[in-house]
């Protein structure tokens, strides 16, 4: 058999040394190669890949969407938090002049920022306009509504407000004092509860992402069994064998997140008009927020890590079982 003299080893027993620099270069090259190969492998079987990605996207979009919604509600309630009001329902016996006098007295107090009187007639007019019971009011002989004074406290802290409310309630002219903050407090408690629920849901769905990617990688490991065995036989390290699978997992995570991002943005888009309509009805200039740059980045990075983690768990578990025999 012809032996190429130039390329023939002088002595087969001498193994060549590879210097550290070229080994490092080769290590980087292998990373790039594996990243590319695992990318193109994903699309070698487009349908199963797409189904997996769709599952991942839904699992990621749900908490992402809910968190964005919550963020909006929080922003909304924060906006309201800044203007707590106390409504003072005056005793029905008081006439308009007395109510007006009382509101002027209130103006002199140093713990109120603003005082706003809604006279009995004004109240009836608003009631007629805003409710459907206007014609019922017509049946009544006289105006059943009391005059109302809404005041804006100077001290807006949650401790001071109930104290002020109690003080105002104690005044003889006041029939009942209602702190508008109460429903806001309830709302914020509700938001907190929902937040916790979404967090738990997010954790569960994150786990689902890890498991879905893990299972996909497990199948991929099974189908590449021969390759793994040969690599191990010729001296491939665990890291070397693991690498393509870790990249596959990371790609799944990243692509799943990208798809989830589209789903979330699309859902928000469909909600945009009804929300704007609702805001208009409340005379608010509320503008709903999307995921934003940081939200999008968090979504992508979290998902990338989850995909990588799923692959890492699957590979760690199965690669030990595949040994040449």
């Amino acid at each position, binding site marked *: 058999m012809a032996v190429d003299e130039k390329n023939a080893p002088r002595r087969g027993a001498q*193994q060549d040394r590879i210097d550290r620099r070229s080994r490092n270069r080769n290590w980087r090259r292998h990373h790039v190669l594996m990243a590319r190969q695992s990318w193109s492998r994903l699309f070698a079987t487009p349908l199963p890949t797409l189904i997996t990605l769709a599952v991942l996207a839904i699992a990621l979009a749900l908490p992402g969407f809910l968190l964005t919604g919550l963020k909006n509600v929080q922003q909304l309630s924060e906006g309201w938090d800044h203007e707590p009001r106390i409504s003072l329902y005056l005793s029905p016996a008081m006439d308009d002049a007395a109510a007006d006098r009382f509101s002027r007295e209130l103006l002199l107090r140093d713990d109120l920022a603003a005082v706003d009187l809604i006279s009995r007639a004004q109240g009836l007019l608003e009631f007629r306009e805003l409710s459907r019971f206007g014609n019922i009011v017509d049946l009544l002989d006289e105006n059943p509504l009391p005059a109302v004074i809404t005041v804006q406290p100077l001290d807006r802290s949650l401790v001071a407000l109930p104290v002020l409310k109690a003080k105002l309630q104690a005044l003889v002219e006041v029939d009942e004092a209602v702190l508008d903050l109460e429903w806001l407090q309830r709302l914020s408690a509700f938001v907190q509860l929902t937040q916790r629920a979404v967090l738990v849901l997010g954790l569960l769905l994150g786990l689902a992402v890890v498991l879905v990617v893990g299972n996909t990688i497990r199948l991929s490991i099974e189908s590449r069994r021969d390759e793994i065995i040969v690599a191990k*036989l010729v001296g491939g390290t665990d890291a070397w064998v693991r690498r393509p699978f870790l990249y596959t997992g990371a790609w799944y995570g990243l692509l799943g997140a990208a798809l989830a991002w589209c789903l979330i943005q699309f859902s928000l888009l469909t909600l945009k008009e009804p929300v704007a309509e609702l805001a208009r009805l409340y005379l608010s200039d509320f503008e709903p927020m999307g995921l934003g740059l940081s939200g999008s980045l968090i979504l992508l990075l979290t998902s990338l890590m989850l995909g990588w983690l799923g692959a890492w768990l699957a590979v760690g578990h199965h690669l030990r079982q595949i*040994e040449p025999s």
Partner: protein
Amino acid sequence: MALISFENVSKRYLSGQEALSNVSFTLREGEMAFLTGHSGAGKSTLLRMIMLMERPSQGQVVVGEQNLAQLGRRELPYHRRRIGVVFQNHHLLFDRTVFENIALPLQICGYEPEDAARRVRAALNKVGLLDKENQSPISLSSGEQQRVGIARAIVHKPRVLLADEPTGNLDPELSEEIMKLFQQFNRVGTTVLIASHDLSLIERMRHRTLVLRNGRLIADGRG
């Protein structure tokens, strides 16, 4: 200098079956030897111990200056890089070309691609398959496939070349050709150990022959 040495090596499986019992021998650097015996005599087990695919129940195996009992899971790949192995079923990957199959050990060891390509072609040249580098191994005859397996085993110039029934599927003529190939590698300094039950072929080759029977080494001498 002893390159491979077995000292009172025994291998007992959990089932109680004894694959090797009290085997001792040394193989000097640059030596070529055959390992023979009926199937189940322990030939494969012995080769697998050199590859660290199995560990002895008793005794120790030393390759180079390295006592294999001291090698952990992490060092195992680096140990295997010093050894080339040829299998009866050659373990080729059919989803890549002949060239890529042979380049795999070099890629794993960290050779530069140009350097690797040069070495792959040199190895292909030695086994006479230079014109087949872009083909899939599946399109080759079984003799050619075995030669691709050999090229892959020697491409990174291992100190030791092991072969487990490398001619098991081949006709006598091809078998002799493969054995001559092993002799060539041995001539340039590679230590070669071949497990085979083809006694007539072994006799013709006139190399040291180790005979196993029921896990015991019963003969060690010139064929």
